[in-house]
């Protein structure tokens, strides 16, 4: 332990970083499959089957990142876990009900008698929408310091819509990568429509966070930080421009660049998340509780860390295997 100095310092930081990575991976991975669900009403029945086929082998594992993220919050910062989740009691409940509905609709829509399929399709959409909206709502409340006023409510409603748009955008980019023909062409149109919502949402949160908290304002807009932080918004702008150009070239006969929009949207998510993480560090409950104050006993964190060091690379490895096995354009899901 000499090597790292005081474990009460580096352990909470390590766990905050792990939790951040889990949230980011979750937002990207479940983001695209939630987005696919949100786009359901715009697709025909056979396209719906193909959309589900494109996410079917992955969604379970994608959702596990949420369990890991909330698990890390629970085990590493138990007091913060309680404070945040009791403050977000109702949106959390709506999210959970949404997750339940869409998760089971995945199975029921193909296994229940055919006349019920339309109902399960609808529940799949409704569940995806409830989950996306409530996560966006929670993001807004969190940015506003978990305060409950009319203003924070209104702001959270707006972030709810924008996060949903962002999810449908990355969902559309996933469909461009995984599908062909008319569905792919439709997905390109969805992405072109969604990108403006995404840009607006990013801009809004970027403006709101420093305005709400003087501390965050100072972190961004004082020298010398402002100089090495300036590339972040600039790079985001470049990425958006590049995304727009990439979408303009699709669909095409050789399917060239079909992967690009999805990769670029991941990049954009990483930038946005990086900005937020920088703003809020070292707080886990905004302006109230830092990661150092909220952390569990170092002994307990250490024993989790030992496991994590071994297990996380394995998880990454077999997740890669699953994406490799199901690479290429989505095909009809079959059990044989």
């Amino acid at each position, binding site marked *: 332990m000499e090597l790292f100095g005081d474990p009460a310092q580096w352990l909470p930081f390590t766990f905050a970083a792990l939790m951040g990575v889990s949230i980011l991976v979750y937002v990207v991975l479940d983001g695209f499959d939630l987005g696919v669900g949100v786009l359901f009403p715009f697709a025909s029945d056979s396209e719906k089957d193909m959309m589900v086929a494109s996410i*079917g*082998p992955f969604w*379970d*594992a994608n*959702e*596990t990142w949420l*369990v*890991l993220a*909330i698990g*890390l*919050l*629970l*085990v590493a910062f*138990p*007091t913060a*876990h*309680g*404070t*945040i*989740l*009791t403050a*977000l*009691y*109702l949106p*959390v*409940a709506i999210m*959970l*009900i949404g*997750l*339940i509905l869409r*998760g*089971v609709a*995945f*199975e*029921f829509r*193909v*296994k*229940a008698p055919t006349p019920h399929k339309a109902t399960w399709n609808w529940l799949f959409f409704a569940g995806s929408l409830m989950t996306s909206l409530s996560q966006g709502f929670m993001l807004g409340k969190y940015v506003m310091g978990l305060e409950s006023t009319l203003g924070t409510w209104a702001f959270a409603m707006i972030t709810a819509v924008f996060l949903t748009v962002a999810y449908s955008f990355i969902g559309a980019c996933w469909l461009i990568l995984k599908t062909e023909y008319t569905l792919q062409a439709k997905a390109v149109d969805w992405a072109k429509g969604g990108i403006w919502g995404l840009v607006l949402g990013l801009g809004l949160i970027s403006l709101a966070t420093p305005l709400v908290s003087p501390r965050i304002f100072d972190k961004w807009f004082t020298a010398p930080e402002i100089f090495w932080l300036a590339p972040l918004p600039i790079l985001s702008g470049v990425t958006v421009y590049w995304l727009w150009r990439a979408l303009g070239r699709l669909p095409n006969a050789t399917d060239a660049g079909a992967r690009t929009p999805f990769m670029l949207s991941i990049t954009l998510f990483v930038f946005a998340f990086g900005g937020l993480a920088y703003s809020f560090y070292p707080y886990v409950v905004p302006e109230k509780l830092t990661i150092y104050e909220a952390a*569990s*006993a170092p*002994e*307990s964190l250490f*024993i*989790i860390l030992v*496991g*994590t060091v071994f*297990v*996380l690379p394995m*998880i990454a490895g*077999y*997740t890669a*295997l*699953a994406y490799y*096995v*199901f690479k290429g354009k989505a095909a*009809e*899901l*079959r*059990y*044989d």
Partner: protein
Amino acid sequence: MDTLMLSRIQFGANISFHILFPTITIALGWVLLFFKLRFNATGDGKWMDAYRFWVKVFALSFAMGVVSGITMSFQFGTNWPGFMETVGNIAGPLLAYEVMTAFFLEAVFLGIMLFGFSRVPGWLHTTATFLVAFGTSMSAFWIIVLNSWMHTPQGYEMRDGVAYATDWFAIIFNPSMPYRFTHMMLASGLTVAFLIAGLSAFRWLLGDRSQGVRATLRTGVYLGALLIPVQIFMGDMHGLNTLKYQPQKVAAMEGNWETQSNVPLLLFAIPDEEARTNHFEVGIPNMASIILKHKADGVVPGLDDFVSEDGEVMHPPVAPVFWSFRIMVATGMAMLLLSWGAAFMMLRKGRGAEGLPKLMLFAMVPMAFSGWVATLAGWYTTEIGRQPWLVQGIMTTEMAVADVPAPFVATTLGAYLSIYVLLLTAYIGVLFYLARKGVDGDVPRRRTPQSGEALARQVPAE
């Protein structure tokens, strides 16, 4: 009702709904591996038929388990923040290990197990099936370690009202863990055995005489007949372990108010907590003393020992524990009767499923869900039996509850309950629908495929 009671009902409803599905997937994973290995060894297509049918049930149950499980991981925070604040240093690492060593393993390989048969080499598909089964069992292991620790905590010290781990080996191998884990794994095996037997009997009654349905009916009946005596023995051992560490729970299970010798085994009674006595007792003399102490005049602890001098009751509510225990035992006895009866008839003259009388097949269909009844009754016995403690001797349930307004909890509880009723109806409906569809689709039988690839060409898509 107040927030505490509503939160308890909500968590109880969530965990009851949740446990139904892992109880199926834990053992069904291993049964699927068995089917796959039989197919690999014999090349007989009936085993793949069985695999393909039951993997659908697995997929559906797994999805139900995942989504209801996510709900619980959030409820620790939304409704029971005091739990993690007090024992988070112990519960945290155990939960973290569950997520890392079990959840990801099963969730990732599930995709390959379900949809990878014609995409990956046969060995990788078999390995994926194994890893999913292994993952579900690992998950059961870690969560039962934590649950058992809440019943029989050790390996910790309290500092300023917070528990700190001192000995992880003692925490993991706490006194009730081996018993509870074995009891639960066997319960899962029995649930699946009766589910398989029940749905196969249903298909048989509809006229399905395929090799696949014969194979699964046999598997279900023999598995049930094999596991039930082991379970009865294991349950008894678990009870003796509870007597040692949580005597108040056993006293409630027996409905025994006073510490005394020659305690009867009550078959029926209405426990009355106001009067602190039972009404309408029907019992077998001395039997409880014999079961628990192995002699007729053995002294069995009574509930009155667990009331403090100022009248505070520190034992669980009696009637729910008393009755859940009896429902569990009665279901177990019905399982014993049915599976041994069916196994005997099938073995006699070697007639297999043809040797089963129609009445017995009819009885198997509702018994498909007997595992659920017994498992829930068993968990109610042990969990209500731990009250008023949340973690035995460390914190009461009341200490952990969140300060959320009661109307909030009432709203979410109402929402969860209505969704659970809807989903449970849909789930059971779809199981029988799949079984019926299996009958229509599988008769007459297909040719026996040689490999996954050949199979993928032959079999029309779902």
